[in-house]
């Protein structure tokens, strides 16, 4: 198994645990200080874990050396975006075509556009610095 796959699995595992912990956190926060064990839904916890696994596991796309930032971002977007919707449909709180559905879609796309743009600007700055160093080197 190559390094990327191993890292993907490791991050996926961590994401799963984090997803469950967030689920537990939400349960605690919504209990108003009086948590009741019977109100925990194992199904929702597992769904949250799977989503965490997809989001964190998918982040290995940024480690593929020869991929562009755009490709990495889109590759990460696909599992998280689709995963989120599938989870929402399965749990029944996201209905296709509903207002929430469209709001979430727009939010997702804007968020990822922002991720790509910020990455692009960061790298743009670094490349500019590289070119300046290169010029300095050539002047010597």
């Amino acid at each position, binding site marked *: 198994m190559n390094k990327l796959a191993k890292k993907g699995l490791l991050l996926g595992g961590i994401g799963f645990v984090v997803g469950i912990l967030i689920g537990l956190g939400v349960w605690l926060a919504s209990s108003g200080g009086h948590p009741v064990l019977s109100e925990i839904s194992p199904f929702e916890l597992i769904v949250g874990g799977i989503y965490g696994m997809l989001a964190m596991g998918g982040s290995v796309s940024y480690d593929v050396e020869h991929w562009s*930032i755009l490709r990495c971002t889109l590759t990460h977007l696909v599992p998280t975006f689709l995963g989120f919707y599938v989870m929402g449909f399965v749990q029944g709180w996201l209905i296709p075509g509903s207002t929430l559905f469209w709001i979430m879609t727009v939010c997702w796309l804007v968020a990822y556009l922002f991720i790509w743009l910020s990455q692009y600007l960061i*790298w743009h700055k670094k490349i500019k610095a590289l070119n300046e*160093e*290169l010029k300095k*080197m050539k002047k010597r």
Partner: protein
Amino acid sequence: MTDNLIIIVDDDADSLANAKSLLEGQYTKVRAIRSGADLLKLTAKHAPDMILLDILMPEMDGFEAYRLLREQEKKLGRNPAPVIFLTGENDTISEQHGLTIGASDFIRKPFNREILLRRIQNAIQSAKTIENLTEEATVDKMTGLLNKAGATGKLPTLCAEEEGTLTMLDLDNFKLVNDLYGHEMGDNVLKAFARILREASSEGDCLCRTGGDEFLAFFRRILRKKEADALAKELNMRMVQACRDLMGAEFDIPIGVSLGMARVPECGRSYDELTRFADAALYQVKQGSKHSAAIYSPDPQAVKEDDLESEMSRLTQILKERNRPGTAMWPGQEGITWIYRFLCRYANRAMKLLFSVTVAEADSKESFAEAVKGFSEVLADTLRESDAILQSRPGRFFVLLPDLGEEDAQQIVRRILDGWAESGTHAGVKVEYILQPQEISSPQAGDVSQIAVYDGGRIALLHPKDFIRIYTENRRLCVMATSGRYESRITLREFEDLLDPGIFVRISRFEIVNLRKISSFDLSMAGTIRIIFSNGEETWVARRYVREIHTKLDQLSKGGEAHE
């Protein structure tokens, strides 16, 4: 009662019923129909053994139905069914016409049962006799395909009327089967090929064996090069498998099939011309890589044209070793000569070994021949697959041991001698040997002067005959320079240090570049970091090396440690 299919065609219901009742006691399958059109519908699905055909019928008379029936039979590739015309008239002109156009007999109504049955029986028997004689004259008994006479009878018609390819097929290296395995095995191979050919053909194709290992076929569905290549590939693949089944694991003959094709009607409709064209295409294949197909084209260049992939696949098929026995090679005098010369040019090291087996007749219980045979078996069992053996003369064995030093070769000699000792008591048999390193004439390590170019994982050296390759070993990226005896294995890190750590920088897992050759860095819209070299070439940079590049550039711009 016989199970021949008899069809009676008559528009008169009474006459039809009468004929049917007369025949039903004698024949189990009697079909009575009312018109010529119905007859043609029925014969399209079933081949009758006899047709009783009334002449006077409305819409389509008996003669017209007969003509259409013969056309249908020709189209379907069937033998003509015997036809007896029926009529109620005393009409000698019709009778004469009927017999002239090929009817078996002529019967007038009303029928006499005995005469009717006798005439039907005679007509069926005559037809069967003709069929048998025709088959004997036109069918190749061994393969069951048409013979040359059959081909000459049938193929011209197909070429004149149908669309497809006239194909000449020839078995490659078939002679070796006869020479090495005998003619009986040769016949079995031919039978197997005929079976494969039959299975690979479609309905309406015509297959003939025109002589020895030569075949001629008309394929209706093979019209394009792609289909021809697919057919050649299938035939070759199945042929090798069939030979393996027939000759067993030791089968090692590069047998195959070459096909020369002429398209019909593009290349014409004349059988003789088409045969010549197919022969020319076959010649083209035979002169080339064999085991493949070529379609004739008036433009000679077009016949030669072939895509690289299929050419490579055919060459691989021919060159590859079949049924590798797992023992050392016995390539013969010529083969070992080429191996020897190749090792001289390429190998880093190799040893040569010469054994002598002699027998002192007075002291020995085994003959010289037995001793030599026994020793050759020990050699074959002991040596590696990569070693090569030649029996230079009786009792002398020359062995090439590639990629071995003297110490390792001595071990192999000891193993051979131990194996020989263990194979029995060989009193009076003397085994001697001489072991020497093989002369290596490839460039020496000193020839490699400096690394000149780096480009996408390949490193070229200034020395024109040398090269370096990068590979991974034990999960380490390594660089190996191969130049005759010179061979070095270092890690990429060591290699980079050798180059000059200040000038070169890693830009990806497999790439290092000279910073002084970089013209600029660039970021594409998609976010790929690129390096543009002074000579205009471009390559991409892994993001994780950008910091390292920056540091090195910084060092160089400050005139620090880096030096060229």
